[in-house]
């Protein structure tokens, strides 16, 4: 019993230290917008918000202990059971669902909702306990690119595909595709708004381009005989290779312009204040100011291209190119 309690205590400490799911939301542009829109939006935004929030929060805390270590500890069968049953209660979401269930007793409307959330939670909890085949994920099968930056771009693309930002943007993009099929005469303004939302969902990543490279990756960048602007170019090419297809069913040129200015603004925090990121979490950008500037720049550029003139696109490209050159020099100094 004492052994199981000691393990649970250590688990609670480890879980608390790794409480990045909520922290990551704080610096994420999409959640700034969502929080702003929440009062006015319909159930769709609530649903996305709930899904993307639930996903990272529903993991099994017992996974923090490597299975090989757990197998080595001299624990009785009863202690294993105790760990299995007690460890989910380290996750605050379990308490939240329990509280919701108690609150919902006698309220017939909430029973279904509680059941839905509890089922989703249990499903993600169980899925997260299934060991995935190492390195075989579909998200790692990316195509080759022409030129000497090929492998760097592929690596960067894989990094982007291991963030929740991409999946959030993908849900939005797919939802609009579905809407266009079901509602053929979708208002033009709706397409623009959704384009801005998709680019915004990806824009926090532009503020932490080197966050998933790890110490090993940064060390390799230092060793490679390559100019800083080319490293940034490889990062940006991967970002555009994701954002442009996502905005294809929306307003692609407005999306491209928005993505270019998101990168131009994001280079400063990405290079000068690099933040380590966690895979399968939302990207955490720099200071709130960077996020706000990015959001305004994306919205203005996208609406300028979409509603006024296409000349905003080469302008955005010029600003982006200048930013790549400038922060590429900075990157050489920082590395």
């Amino acid at each position: 019993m004492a052994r199981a309690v000691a393990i649970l205590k250590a688990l609670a400490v480890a879980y608390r230290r790794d409480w990045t799911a909520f922290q990551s939301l704080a610096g994420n542009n999409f959640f700034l917008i969502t929080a702003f829109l929440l009062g006015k939006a319909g159930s769709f935004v609530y649903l996305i918000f709930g899904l993307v929030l639930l996903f990272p929060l529903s993991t099994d805390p017992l996974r923090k202990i490597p299975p090989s270590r757990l197998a080595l500890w001299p624990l009785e069968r009863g202690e294993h059971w105790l760990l299995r049953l007690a460890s989910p209660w380290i996750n605050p979401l379990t308490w939240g669902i329990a509280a919701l269930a108690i609150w919902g007793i006698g309220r017939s409307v909430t029973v279904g909702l509680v059941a839905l959330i509890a089922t989703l939670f249990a499903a993600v909890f169980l899925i997260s306990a299934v060991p995935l085949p190492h390195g075989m994920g579909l998200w790692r099968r990316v195509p080759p690119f022409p030129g000497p930056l090929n492998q760097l771009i592929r690596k960067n693309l894989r990094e982007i595909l291991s963030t929740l930002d991409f999946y959030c943007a993908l849900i939005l993009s797919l939802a609009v595709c579905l809407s266009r099929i079901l509602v053929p005469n979708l208002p033009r303004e709706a397409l623009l708004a959704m384009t801005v939302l998709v680019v915004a969902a990806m824009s926090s990543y532009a503020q932490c381009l080197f966050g998933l490279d790890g110490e090993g990756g940064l060390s390799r960048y230092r060793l490679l005989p390559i100019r800083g602007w080319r490293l940034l170019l490889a990062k940006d090419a991967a970002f555009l290779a994701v954002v442009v297809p996502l905005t294809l069913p929306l307003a692609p040129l407005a999306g491209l312009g928005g993505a270019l200015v998101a990168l131009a603004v994001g280079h400063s925090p990405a290079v000068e204040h690099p933040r380590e990121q966690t895979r399968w979490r939302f990207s955490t950008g720099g200071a709130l100011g960077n996020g706000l500037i990015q959001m305004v720049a994306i919205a203005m550029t996208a609406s300028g291209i979409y509603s006024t003139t296409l000349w905003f696109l080469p302008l955005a490209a010029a600003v982006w190119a200048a930013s790549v050159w400038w922060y590429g020099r900075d990157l050489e100094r920082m590395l």
Partner: protein
Amino acid sequence: MISCRNLTRRFGDFTAVNNLNLEVDKGKICAFLGPNGAGKSTTVKMMTGLLAPTSGEVKVCGLDAAANPLELKRRIGVLPEDLGLFDDLTVEEHLLLTGDIYGVPRAESRARTTQLLHALSLEHGRRTFAASCSHGMRKKTAFAMALLPNPQVIFMDEPFEAIDPVTAKIMRDLLQSCARHGVTVFLTSHILSMVERIADQIVMIRKGGMVWNSPVGELPQSLEDHYFDLVETPVVEELEWLGPSRS
């Protein structure tokens, strides 16, 4: 090929490397020995242009490492302490990346990659992502990356640690082959038996200062004994609570 003159690096009040003077000739294998924290990695970082010296100078391939870091990087191969691998690239992709960045023609790069994968018994894991590789595979990948561009000087930070004996032998043979072809090798290691077999020159460092520099043939006693005499003497402490009769 490598030349250090009064090389010093300070971090605040702490002097990591103090007044180091050193010459390594072309085609020689120089082993740089010392305990953890002695200043070995700091010295290698200064030699590879990753860290500017506080004072003094270091020249590699005739280039001032601090003034021409990019040109220097084109001429050297490095196996860094942390291996410097990307989790999202496979073993083979790491080697192809190296070829692309160092300007090795694509066909030649592919041929060298195949040869290196074969030589280091990495063929079975060529499509394994670095994040999923064993430590030995990761080390062999970083080793292959250092060799692929055919550098003039190779820097290796603890190349033989945590690898199996067969791989260690293969790596040793490859480094000796490099030296025979005129490539200079500068390595740090804690495995003194391996160093004794491979090195032409032994340099020992302690608390940032050089305490020995000679050809391996001029060591007055075995390398291990000499190391313990000059660098640090091992003290074995008795753990009285160990044993079946104690709780």
